[in-house]
């Protein structure tokens, strides 16, 4: 038994290592087959997810039809508007993506903290401070356009991280529960931002109340599709999905973070500093939140507006959990919420559904999605019973459909949240 030791090398049983590499070489049909097999499995899962998801949304829409009529809307038009308003035209699709971007990035922020066992309800405040930082920097620093974009984006991330710093320190080193500190930080952020762009505030625009001066056009995120508002924030969001996924699942830092969230004592036993990991997770989460705010300012509004956020940071919690905390799942969940948001405009204009009723419909959809794992469980049980009572089970059509749908709910984040909420001990 031999061991190689160096400062940049993990100590490991070399014999075992060799043996494990051999498994690789002797491997079944080589990595190609394995990749194909895994892709096929993932494809099957994805198909099941999409199918069950569509069914869920349909169910929710059907349930909300009476409400739509009650509020004076036109149900038939509403169904049409729901689809047409979000994906019916290139412009609508672009608008859906515009609505998706902030939810996606802030959803990643929530999820990153969750993976470390932290419930960051402060994403909203961090997002506001990030937007504010980007807005102020963009409106005041006399830098050439491309450089200014980078500086503004960085300022947004830094602002968000700064806003997460106090809860992070209190959590990591004093064990103060992050839920209460981040809620407090939210209120402070709202009051501070209001003050900074109030008439007596230092950064208010001379022509536009409750906002900063405009950021020069060259320093805004470029529009991706001319004639729409779809901006480069989408690309940033996609990059962030990949980056967060990479970080969580393909870096040692991400591993420490997930392990700390899953079992802080095990992490500590493996030589991971729990307080440092908490600090890092919270700061990264804040930075992502700040980016979400900065992207709205730099891509959509061109300046910071007070109260620009309808609560992206709160919706992000649902987005993150709906996406089962996985970056790709979050992208899907954000797209789903973005679809609801962008169809809201159409629903109002074309089908006479008030914005309040649109809120009710999205609530019902979220409720159905939340209940989906249970409904699927029920179907599975019925199917199992049926299969057992039949002497010779032959899958009929319904069974085949259920076979694809049933084992794969859109998201079953229960496990994630339960360990996410487990108290992370920060004792040294």
């Amino acid at each position, binding site marked *: *038994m*031999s*061991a190689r*030791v*160096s*400062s*940049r*090398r*993990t*100590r*490991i*049983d*070399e014999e*075992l*290592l060799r*043996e*494990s*590499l051999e*498994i*690789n070489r002797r491997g079944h049909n080589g*990595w190609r087959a394995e990749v194909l097999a895994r892709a096929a499995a993932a494809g099957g899962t994805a198909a099941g997810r999409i199918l069950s998801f569509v069914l869920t949304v349909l169910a929710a829409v059907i349930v909300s039809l009476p409400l739509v009529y009650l509020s004076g809307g036109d149900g038939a038009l509403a169904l049409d508007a729901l689809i047409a308003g979000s994906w019916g035209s290139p412009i609508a699709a672009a608008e859906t993506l515009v609505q998706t971007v902030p939810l996606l990035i802030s959803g990643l922020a929530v999820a990153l903290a969750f993976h470390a066992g932290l419930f960051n309800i402060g994403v909203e405040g961090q997002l506001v401070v990030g937007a504010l930082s980007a807005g102020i920097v963009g409106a005041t620093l006399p830098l050439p356009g491309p450089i200014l974009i980078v500086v503004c984006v960085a300022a947004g991330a830094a602002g968000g991280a700064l806003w997460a710093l106090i809860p992070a320190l209190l959590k990591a080193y004093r064990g103060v529960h992050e839920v209460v500190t981040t809620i407090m930080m939210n209120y402070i952020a709202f009051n501070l931002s209001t003050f900074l762009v109030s008439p007596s505030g230092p950064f208010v625009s001379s022509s536009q109340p409750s906002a900063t001066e405009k950021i020069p056009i060259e320093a805004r995120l470029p529009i991706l599709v001319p004639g729409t508002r779809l901006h480069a924030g989408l690309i940033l969001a996609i990059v962030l999905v990949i980056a967060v996924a990479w970080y969580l*699942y*393909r*870096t*040692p*830092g*991400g*591993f*420490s973070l*997930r*392990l700390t969230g*899953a*079992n802080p*004592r*095990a992490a*500590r*036993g*493996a*030589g*991971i500093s729990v307080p440092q990991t908490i600090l890092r997770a919270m700061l990264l989460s804040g930075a992502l939140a700040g980016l979400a705010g900065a992207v709205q300012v730099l891509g959509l509004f061109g300046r910071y507006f007070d109260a620009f956020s309808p609560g992206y940071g709160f919706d992000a919690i649902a987005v993150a959990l709906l996406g089962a905390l996985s970056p790709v799942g979050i992208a899907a969940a954000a797209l789903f919420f973005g679809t609801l948001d962008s169809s809201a405009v159409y629903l109002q204009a074309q089908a006479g559904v008030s914005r309040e009723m649109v809120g009710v419909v999205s609530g019902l959809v979220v409720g159905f999605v939340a209940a989906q794992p249970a409904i699927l469980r029920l179907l599975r049980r019925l199917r199992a019973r049926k299969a057992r009572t039949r002497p010779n089970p032959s899958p009929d059509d319904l069974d085949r459909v259920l076979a694809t749908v049933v084992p794969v709910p859109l998201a079953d984040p229960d*496990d*994630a949240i339960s*360990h996410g909420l487990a108290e992370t001990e920060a004792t040294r």
Partner: protein
Amino acid sequence: MSATAVRLAGITKRFGAVTANDGIDLAVRAGTVHGVLGENGAGKSTLMKILFGMIRPDEGTIEIDGKRVELRSSADALAQGIGMVQQHFSLVGPFTVVENLILGRDSRALWRRWLAPLPLSAARERARELSERFGFGLDADARCQDLSVGARQKVEIVKALWAGATILVLDEPTAALSPPEAEELYALLERLRADGTTVILISHKLPEILRLCDRVTVLRDGKVVGTREIDRADMDAISRAGVEADLVHLMIGRERPTVPERHPRELAPVLSVRGLTDGGRIGPVDLEVAGGEIVAVVGVEGNGQSALVDLLTGVVRAKAGSIVLDGAELAGRSTLARLRAGLAHIPEDRHAQAVAEEMSLIDNASIGFTTGAPFAPTRLWLSKAKRRRLAEAIIRDRSVRTPGPDAPMRSLSGGNQQKLVVGRELARAPRLMIAAQPTRGLDIASTTAVHEALMKLRAAGAGVLLLSLDLTEVFAISDRIVVIRQGVLVGEVATDRADPERLGAWMSGAAGGEEAA
């Protein structure tokens, strides 16, 4: 002879693809102790949970005292006079002992339960009574989470007997007890039997089964593979060995695997601890472990074994003292540095310290391997493929039963989780392995496998520090035994010169302590 207290007929329970119980028939005579044996995952706990109403069987019937019953919940089982001590603690940590005892037992009218104060003082009195009768010495107002594992086990037993259970189910009750504590339990069970209580006992420890049980049923893969009467009155060493071999054969389908012989070796020190203390509960501790030596630290739970391990692994910083491993001073160094220097650790509390249940086997196998090459050559890259290979190698080497390396850790049975942890720690190529209760809850085959692994380490010249409550284990594999009491090592003895009886007395601080050396 006597009436049948419990009759299970045709019990079948499936969990997805797993059939945990497969048409099980079991009859338990009233006033006897009935043993249930089987490997990890054989379906013992599932069967007992069905009897306790916690799991609804897919098929099968239950009769209590000859009457067919429907057990929809543990409330129903309690009402039938069944009490159960779970394999995993079922106490509410932040509640006091007495609160745990009366939990769910209040039978007053509903409005009283909403309005009237809890009948705590009466319960306290009764708890004191029971505790005294069994010689437990429980503090009724202590919080359960502050109690040692042994004390918690006692609370569980008192809780099961609280409502005057006539049928008592015990699922591996001695896995967490020290030998003197286990003795107390045995005496208690004898007394209960004498009082006419029916006891069902699940255990992996054959000696205690042979000593206590009137009859044993062996499960394998969810099926009953045999039932044996045990004539306790007439059992000498030879017939005992015969029965044991018979039961082992029933359980695992082959002979008991043997642990390799220990061979004396040239010894060079690997670990040398001097004056180690946390400034309070523990130390100063002086301890040497040589390469090729297994040193067992024994003591009653709560005497500082955990604290000693924490100091050695660096999870808790020492106030004073030195820890030298292979000539390198580790006392001031981080846990990570200690792992790199050749320390490995099988923690005593698997759930709390060793595994992340929600993470995959791949992730769990790579805990502690994610800083530095080969898995993480840079801070931006942690190889999944290589970690998968590592997990696969460990799964194969340690025969972990799992659907695959991507499965979440929680989907494994406790024994298989433990095997993965052992494999992971062995993969560190340790110079010193700290093995704390490494076979707690493991079946005979797995236990032997762990022992083999530790012996192999020893043969390779590494040191092993074994912390164990199981004296059979200590005698089977250790070279030297040190006794810890109230945070200090009170003495040591070579294993082949140690005497279990005296060791027990020594651990509990009774007579005959210090003079051994």
